[in-house]
Structure formats: C-alpha cells, structure tokens
C-alpha cells in the first residue's frame, strides 16, 4: 500500500525552527506543513499590511524557509503553509527572492487567495455567532474577515506542480488533508477518508503537542529531552489510517497518552468536528501502540460537510491597561491586598472609567480564583491589575496607578511592569461556501 509521509514544521507562528530542519533531514518527508495562523493573527497582519503594502505575512517566513528550503529541494519534499496570513502574494514574492538567493531557480510556488471575504460580509446580512448581533453593529471597527477555506485549492496547487503552497486562512487540518487527497485521489464526497485525513491533520497541526510537548507533569507524566523536542510526522496509507511518529534521536515521546491528549485538544463534540470539507468524526477512533514512538490511528469517520464556511472577523474592541508589582517575605499577601485596594480606590477617585476589571494576586488567585488557594501563604505574590477602558488614555492610567505604588503604596513593592494596548478581538460568522471563491496563482523562482 502506498504511504505518504507528512511532517509538521511548526505548531504556531513563533514555534522553534530547528525541529523542522531535523524532520526534513531525517524524516524522509513527502510533505512538510507549517501551520502558523492563530485566530487573531490575520487581523494583526492586516493592520501591518495597511501600514506597509509589502507586509502582512508571517514575520518568520524568511527564517523558516531559509532553514529548510535547500534540503527540501534535494529531497523533493513539498511545503504547504498558511504563513501568507493577510498577504499571501507578498509572501510568495518574498519566497521567490529567497529561493533565488539560495540558488533554487525553478522552484514553483503556488499562492492560494480568496479567503478575504471582507466585502461579502459587509454587504450581506450576517449574524455574529458569539453575541447574536448583526455583523453590521461592528461598523467601521472591522479590520478583516477571512473565511476558512478547505483543502481543494491546495490540492489544485499540488496538482499544478507546486513545490511550495502559500495560503492565507485555510482550515488548519485542511493543510494536512490536501496532500492526502492529492496523492490518494480521494473523492470530495468520500466523507470517511476526508474524516480520517482530518484526524491526521488535527493530530499534527500543533506539532510538538503530540510528541510530548505541553504534556510533562513530573512524577506523573515524565517526558525526556523537551529542550530538543522532535516534531511529528505521520505515515498515512491509502485507507486514511496512519501512524504518528517522530525521527529517532529527537526529544520527547509519541505515546498513546500524548496522542489522546492531542486528539481531544480544542474539540467539542468528538463526533462532529466541523471542517470546511467534512464534518469529521473522531468518536470511533482507536489508538494502538506500534513500537517505540509509534502510535497507530484507525477508524476515523466523517459526515457530509455543512456547505458553509466559518469566517473570522477581526475588529477593534477596546483598550486594556495593566500593571504589576511584587511583594515578598512576611506579610507579602497582606501588603499585596492593601495595594490592590489602594489602586482600586485611586482609579475610582480619579474617575477612570473601567468597563471591566480584574484585581488579582499572582500566586494566590490570578488563574483560578480565590477559593482554591485556601489559607496558603506564599512567600511572594505579584499584584496584577488589568482593566478594559474606552480610551487609550484611561488604559494608560491603570498601569500608572500601579506604578505609583512604588512611592505611595505599601512597603517593599518592586518590579513594576505596565502596559496599555488596543485590543483587536475576533468574532465569528458563517458564509455559504458558494459565496467564497478561492483563487490560485503560480510564481517561479
């Protein structure tokens, strides 16, 4: 049976570079996928593009590609990535330049666009999933709107001979599903195969999270060599079943436990994982150990797709001001609590309008509230005040009131940090898939 080897080169935009290099050198990969777009990334990239028309793609694109392109070329490993973010074309043009600098003339690059649906959602009547309000209530605060495209345009890019496919917003798992559909010729209504390919993509898309990253709990779940964690690869067969593994000698482990945690990561109903191409069903999946660092994934299923695409809308939301200061030694908690009250009173007395606020002591209650710490008395605590405001000036005041604790607050406060920032938030809506038209362009180095 034909087997395709797909590796994950990054689990998020800022991920480590070296594991991808190791995977390409020793993983005998057919495909390497870099999934680098979080929910809000495109909105921030769109802002960058407004400031500079040549910007708006992943700032680490050049560094990542320089690290792997020559070896990928030698080994005929094809690359798929959503590092195009809000400007896939500029990302591709930059890649052409990098490829030429590396002496890789002839490299064929495909650009997938059409995920930008800002015009469509501003003209029609759409509802925000989170609040039920019309999209139009966001008015001119909307920055970006991008539909999650499916695997089809990426498959067309591969069929067109692309060595490297650069996209904007595409469903994360679809980036991995695409090479499987291309290689195995799965039909677009073969829901079972599409579901299985989605499961493979879902297991791989966060890279190190399936090879032992985000897992260790000393004494309960030990994990070796996390400083040189290996990234995963899947060996996928024509039947869509797969083995998750990593290259020998890399850090971390691929175990039943790491795969179970990742299979359920960011999943709601495991029988209905909504994707652009399929509603994947993980509920009948079985995982079995198949030797060291090898886990078999079998029995994924799928249901017909919904024919509507999720759209992420980036929008200006509010301003947030924040300040932190630390207290230590005997009475640290009491001084921290006193400091919180002082800041609360100061913000009230100076009429800083807060639409939402948090007054926490890190080490006591900042993560899971007050009751879980009980009577614990940590040696040190860190005060954290964070508040939402309507203006930047008011957000600045929040951090300033923490800073003035230096000379006006309780004894022994140190290590102030403060910030004030505009919040770009993300909301969701849905668009019928026939209103979204993916487009494909080819460039050659």
């Amino acid at each position, binding site marked *: 049976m034909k087997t395709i080897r797909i590796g994950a080169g990054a689990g998020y935009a800022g991920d480590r570079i070296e594991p991808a290099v190791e995977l390409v050198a020793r993983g005998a990969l057919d495909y390497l996928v870099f999934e680098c777009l979080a929910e809000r990334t495109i909105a921030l990239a769109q802002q960058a593009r407004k400031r500079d028309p040549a910007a708006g793609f992943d700032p680490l694109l050049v560094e990542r590609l320089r690290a792997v392109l020559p070896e990928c070329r030698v080994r005929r490993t094809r690359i798929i990535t959503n590092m195009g973010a809000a400007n896939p074309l500029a990302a591709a043009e930059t890649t052409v330049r990098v490829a030429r600098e590396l002496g890789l003339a002839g490299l064929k690059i495909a650009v997938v666009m059409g995920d930008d649906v800002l015009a469509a959602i501003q003209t029609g009547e759409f509802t925000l999933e989170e609040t039920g309000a019309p999209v139009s209530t966001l008015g001119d605060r909307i920055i970006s709107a991008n539909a999650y495209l499916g695997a089809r345009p990426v498959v067309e890019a591969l069929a067109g001979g692309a060595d490297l496919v650069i996209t904007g917003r595409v469903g994360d798992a679809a980036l991995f599903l695409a090479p499987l559909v291309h290689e195995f010729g799965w039909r677009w209504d073969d829901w079972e195969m599409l579901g299985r390919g989605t499961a493979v993509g879902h297991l791989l898309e966060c890279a190190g999270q399936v090879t032992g990253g985000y897992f260790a709990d000393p004494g*309960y779940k030990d994990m070796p060599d996390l400083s040189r964690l290996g990234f995963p690869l899947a060996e996928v067969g024509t039947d869509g079943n797969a083995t998750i593994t990593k290259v020998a000698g890399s850090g971390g482990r691929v175990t039943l436990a790491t795969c179970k*945690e990742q299979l*359920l990561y*960011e999943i*709601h109903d495991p*029988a209905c994982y909504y994707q652009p191409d399929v509603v994947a069903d993980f509920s009948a999946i079985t995982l079995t150990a198949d030797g060291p660092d090898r886990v078999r994934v079998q029995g994924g299923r799928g249901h017909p797709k919904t024919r509507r695409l999720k759209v992420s809308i980036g929008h200006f939301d509010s301003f947030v001001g924040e300040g932190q200061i630390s207290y230590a030694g005997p009475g640290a908690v009491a001084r921290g609590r006193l400091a919180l009250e002082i800041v609360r009173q100061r913000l009230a007395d100076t009429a800083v309008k807060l639409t939402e606020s948090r007054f926490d002591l890190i080490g006591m209650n900042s993560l899971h509230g007050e009751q879980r710490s009980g009577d614990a008395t940590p040696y040190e605590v860190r005060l954290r005040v964070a508040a939402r405001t309507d203006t930047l000036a008011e957000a600045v005041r929040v951090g300033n009131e923490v800073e003035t604790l230096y000379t006006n607050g309780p004894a022994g406060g140190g290590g102030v940090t403060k910030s004030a920032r505009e919040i770009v938030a993300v909301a969701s809506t849905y668009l019928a898939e026939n209103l979204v038209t993916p487009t494909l362009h080819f460039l050659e180095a």
Partner: protein
Amino acid sequence: MKLRELAHSRTGDKGNTANISVIAYEAKDYAWLERHVTAEKVAAHFADLARGPVTRYALPKLGALNFVLAGALGGGVTRSLALDAHGKSLSSAILDLEIPDRPEVLGARGVAP
C-alpha cells in the same frame, strides 16, 4: 482521592469556550471515571470560573471524557482580561477534583472493597 491519581488532562480553547479532556492512565479505570466525573460534578467544581453550561462527551475507546465549558474564558481569548486568557491552566484545576477512592485503592489500604 484526587482525579490526578487516575487521569491526565489537556485544555483547549475556541472563542469563549474551553474544553478539558480527562484521560484515564489505565483503561481499567475508565468506568470509574465515567461514573464519578460527571458533567454536574465538573460544573460544580468550576462554578466560580465558568458561567455557561458544561457538556460531557464520553470516548470509551480512548478511555477518555471530554468536558466542554461554555462561557469559561472571560469573553474569549482575544479580549479576556485574565492572565491565562486561553484557560490553558484549567487542566490542572480539574485534576484537583476529589473523587471516591476506587475499590483497588481501598483494598490497598486494608479496607474491604
């Protein structure tokens, strides 16, 4: 006993919704978890943190439960004021859940199962 003795966990986020998996270390313990780690119990455990309903999905083939906590992330990852806006640390909170000792543990302590 603490849930941590029998299970491990990972938290994921989507918008203002968190999901928290509870995965048995040993397949034989899954039935005990399915019986004692209910949606009601998890909702009560997180009552001070999660405003929305808690839904439980059972995955017997994986020996795992998946809890979905609506409204648990302070308005959503991109706008939450929380230090841990993703709620990634919630997996550690669920492992602190107190569950009845499973029979084997009682046996080890010399108490009839």
